[in-house]
């Protein structure tokens, strides 16, 4: 099936074309939903078979290139439209098509009755198309095509309900924010790409990476390339300081938040850094930057999550925080641990968002968790799956999140230092706390909503079945990555699977830790115990001792408002970036540069063209004799010129 991997790109494109062009004529929601979901479902099967086939190959033959056609062949630049099928891309593709399929199915229920039902599915399919190009592309250009494509789809889907208001602004403003912030990252990524081309004379992954290992390229060049690529990754994966768009992206329909802004697109940055691992490994200074940025993002986003009241906002900051973890892993060189967390996070975060969607749906679009309460009575299936996901993200032993998060924490100490571990562990505690604050306020305690107005109810099977499947994955998904200390001689299966992809980077960094298993177990016990304590504390505080929370909030009023207002980052941007740009644009660029200079030149050129062409036009008199005279004169002139030049 490896040779047919292009189907996973083609089918979603087909789904997009069918639903996008014929959607308004089909009208039947079921049919549209089936078309949209089945294209992704079949893609999933193709990826699955390709995966089985690849696993069957010896480890050194697991990298295959499926060439479709030569796309550009201009002046030495040869770009092929080709897909790279290797352990890394297959892992990502499994997550994208698998989780993507479940979310498509869920959307049939969630979007029921929407006036642009067809458009939603067309966009979702287009997103999968772009995302698969991003993951499977065998060179930076195809990756960039997908990179820009997912950005576009993200914009379209955040702004899907473009007539509505969102917080202080409107939905289109949130969509624009996401797009513009992403563009800043994309610019960095483009610069990185140009630099790669000028350094290695190629944009093909295998080519560039093999050259990167052996070419005599200075560390400064590697550092520059890596930092540009990392800026791109920051934009897509919402890292400091470009994370501001992700919370606002929650203006889109909830399945979109689950698919794009939690499970798949936002991990594109992680994927890209992991893909270019050899380049990053060759720039140790940038690796430290990545680790520090990841750590800070994880921590600060988690603190903001503590006090938010909008259910999707909490999950959004949680996503930013978890992405920070992934970058922390990449930064300390634990690439496979980062990808492992991408996968487990996709399961439980998609589940959390879809669960949140189910709640919002039944609560008539109410998103404030202070106005929920005791929902476990009304929505048992949502409740159970949601709690499983919350336990998974909190790192409850035995669930998927435990294995991946623990691996990251361990490497942050083993490859990094104790400080990374401490901040990581504190973040894990915070995560456990805000997740169970959310769970407790939502599902336990008394109903805090008007029962005569709202009638919470369980969602239909088309929505709850995907929840259950994801819950199953959130439980067992971690078992393929059991660390060496538990699995013994087999080692970490997931790690070994990705080994060939990161081998070059590992060679380059050559970190051989001298840490003992005892250290690993001690650190693990400490972090798990603290997280469990946080879960218990959150449950007690928000069911029985709510006054503790209120008292703490009033005692630390300054801190509380700072957190509640997200460290005023949006305001700071407004003041430091947006206002100056607006002012500068208006006064300098618009009123002076545009009106006076640009318009002056353009209008001047236009009137010049005007004059010239009115003269030329007069030559076309329609009189044949005149034409013939001009022609003869032309010949005479040419002859005259030749005589002169001889």
């Amino acid at each position: 099936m490896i040779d047919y991997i292009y189907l996973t790109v083609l089918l979603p494109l087909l789904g997009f074309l069918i639903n996008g062009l014929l959607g308004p004529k089909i009208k039947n929601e079921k049919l549209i939903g089936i078309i949209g979901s089945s294209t992704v479902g079949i893609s999933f099967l193709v990826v699955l078979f390709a995966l089985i086939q690849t696993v069957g190959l010896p480890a050194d033959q697991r990298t295959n290139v499926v060439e479709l056609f030569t796309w550009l062949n201009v002046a030495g630049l040869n770009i092929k439209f080709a897909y790279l099928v290797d352990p890394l891309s297959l892992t990502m593709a499994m997550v994208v098509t698998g989780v993507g399929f479940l979310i498509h199915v869920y959307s049939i229920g969630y979007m029921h009755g929407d006036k642009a039902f067809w458009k939603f599915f067309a966009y979702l399919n287009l997103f999968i198309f772009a995302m698969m190009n991003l993951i499977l592309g065998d060179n930076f250009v195809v990756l960039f095509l997908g990179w820009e494509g997912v950005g576009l789809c993200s914009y379209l889907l955040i702004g899907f309900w473009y007539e509505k208001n969102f917080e202080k602004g409107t939905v289109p403003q949130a969509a624009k924010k996401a797009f513009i912030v992403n563009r800043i990252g994309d610019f960095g990524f483009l610069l990185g790409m140009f630099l790669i081309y000028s350094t290695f004379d190629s944009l093909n992954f295998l080519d560039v990476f093999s050259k990167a290992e052996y070419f005599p390229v200075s560390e400064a060049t590697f550092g520059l390339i890596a930092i540009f690529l990392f800026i791109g990754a920051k934009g897509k994966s919402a890292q400091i300081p470009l994370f501001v768009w992700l919370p606002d992206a929650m203006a889109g329909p909830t399945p979109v938040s689950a698919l794009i802004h939690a499970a798949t697109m936002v991990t594109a940055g992680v994927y890209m850094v992991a893909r270019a691992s050899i380049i990053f490994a060759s720039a140790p200074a940038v690796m430290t930057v990545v680790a520090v940025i990841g750590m800070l993002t994880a921590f600060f986003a988690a603190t903001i999550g503590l006090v938010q009241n909008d259910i999707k906002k909490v999950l959004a900051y949680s996503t930013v925080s978890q992405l920070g973890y992934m970058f922390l892993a990449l930064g300390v060189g634990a690439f496979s641990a980062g990808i492992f967390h991408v996968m487990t996070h996709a399961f439980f975060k998609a589940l959390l968002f879809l669960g949140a969607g189910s709640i919002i749906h039944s609560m008539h679009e109410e998103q404030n968790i202070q106005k929920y309460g005791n929902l476990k009575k009304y929505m048992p299936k949502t409740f159970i799956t949601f709690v499983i996901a919350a336990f998974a993200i909190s790192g409850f032993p035995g669930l998927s999140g435990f294995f991946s998060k623990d691996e990251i924490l361990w490497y942050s100490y083993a490859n990094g230092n104790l400080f990374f571990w401490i901040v990581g562990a504190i973040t894990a505690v915070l995560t456990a706390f805000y997740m169970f604050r959310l769970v407790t306020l939502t599902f336990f305690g008394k109903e805090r909503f008007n029962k005569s107005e709202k009638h919470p109810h369980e969602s239909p099977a088309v929505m709850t079945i995907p929840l259950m499947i994801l819950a199953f994955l959130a439980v067992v998904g971690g078992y393929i990555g059991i660390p060496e200390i538990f699995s013994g001689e087999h080692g970490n299966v997931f790690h070994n699977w990705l080994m060939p992809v990161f081998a070059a980077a590992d060679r380059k960094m050559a970190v051989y830790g001298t840490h003992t298993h005892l250290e690993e177990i001690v650190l693990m016990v400490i972090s798990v115990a603290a997280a469990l304590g946080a879960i218990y504390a959150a449950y007690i505080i928000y069911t029985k001792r709510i006054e503790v929370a209120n008292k703490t909030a009033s005692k630390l009023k300054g801190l509380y408002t700072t957190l509640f207002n997200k460290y005023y980052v949006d305001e700071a941007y407004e003041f430091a970036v947006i206002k100056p740009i607006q002012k500068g644009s208006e006064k300098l660029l618009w009123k002076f540069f545009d009106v006076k200079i640009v318009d002056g030149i353009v209008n001047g050129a236009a009137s010049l063209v005007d004059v010239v062409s009115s003269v030329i036009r007069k030559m076309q008199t329609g009189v044949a004799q005149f034409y013939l005279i001009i022609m003869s004169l032309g010949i005479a002139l040419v002859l005259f010129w030749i005589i002169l030049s001889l």
Partner: protein
Amino acid sequence: MDLSFITESLYFVKPEIAASASIILLVLLDLIFHKNKTIIPYVALAGIIITGIFVVDQFNISGFAFLSTDNPKYGMIAVDNFGAFFKLIIIISSIFVVAFSAYSDEINKITDRLGEYYALIFGMILGMLVLISASDLILIYLSMELLSLSSYVLAGFTKLRDRSSEASLKYLLYGATSTGMMLFGISILYGLTGSTNLYIISAALQTQSLNLLTLAFSIILIFAGIGYKISSAPFHFWTPDVYEGAPISITAYLSVASKAAGFALLIRFIKTTFVTFVDDNGNWQLLQVFDWESLLIIISLLTMTLGNFTALWQRNLKRMLAYSSIAHAGYLMLGLLVFSNQGLIAILIYFTIYLFMNLGAFFIVMVIANKTGSEDIDDYDGLGFKSSFLGVSLAIFLVSLTGLPPTAGFIGKLYLFIALVDAKMLTVAIIALLNTVVSLYYYIRVLKHMFLTSPTEKTEKIPLNFGQIAVIIIMLIPILLFGVYFSPVVDLAKSYITILGF
């Protein structure tokens, strides 16, 4: 001269034989079915397809037909890949023109003269096929006259319209003058070298020392004849008047097929006669008669500038497209004036794309004119809303003509400009780029009328039948496909630049 002289040559001229047979057949059928002529277009189509099959059959075959009696190494007709490529362009555009004519109200009004119409089209086809492979001045002249005479009549085919008769007459006057000059040039060249065969002339030019002024004089005069066919400045004046007056199907045909034949002739004439040597990088070394480069640069830039600047003012779409096709002749010459294989590749790519985008634009203008009876830009107000398929398709063709991505037109211009930049002619490239900016204005103005102006009461929905939609889609597909996936066109062009003798 024995019989084998002829029989051995027949192998190389099968397409020309098929075209000649079709003329005779059409004339006969016209006499037999003088009441009901519905069969005629089908016979014409079949004739074109058979001719086309023979053309495809000629791919990768090379050789001379009708060998010269002076030097039997060379002949009057050179069959090679370069010629086959241009012949294919002619065949494809001929097929489209039959489709055009089938849907053209102008043509359908005169069914009783349908036999004549198609017989004349075949006259043009035959003329062009011979012109493309002719390597003898006499044959060049003869085929050019055959092509021209058929075109004169076709341009005035709807003779009841004043415009049409005027077009025909102007075309005739202009053609007669130019070919007259060309004939004069040919006679001088013959007098200088003692042969009419291009290859023998080339050999003579390289070995003997000749009076350069006389030689230059003859080349310029010959160029007048060719320049008139490709409507380059200052021989372009006939173009707008003729294009406007002729039936749209013929205008479209003249703007693509006739121009292709003219270009093929120009390239073959220069390459076989004056190129002495092609180096490893594909650069051509020319015989130093005068400054070839400067002359062609001036003509090329003048042609595109005149075409674009005059098009700015046109309110009649047909006339606007006429000027635009003049401008495109200017762009195409950019590929020649770098005198390299890369430039030649760029010309072949451009022609492949130009064929579809120009014919596409003309076809839609014709479909609209069928309904509204006008080509005035004001009648396009709000068309994008009333007939969205037509509007969007025309928009794509015009955007492609401008040369914007992601349409194929961009790829065509891209390769032309790459050839220029590689030849270090940055100034020329910049002037050409500025020209495309000017052209953006008049192309996009049509879009403005179609999509930004609301429909008026006059705007009506243009009904389309299945065949018309099919024709439009067939032309749209390459424009959209080659804009993204263009390596097949490039590869095709690369393998079809071989001209016999090098």
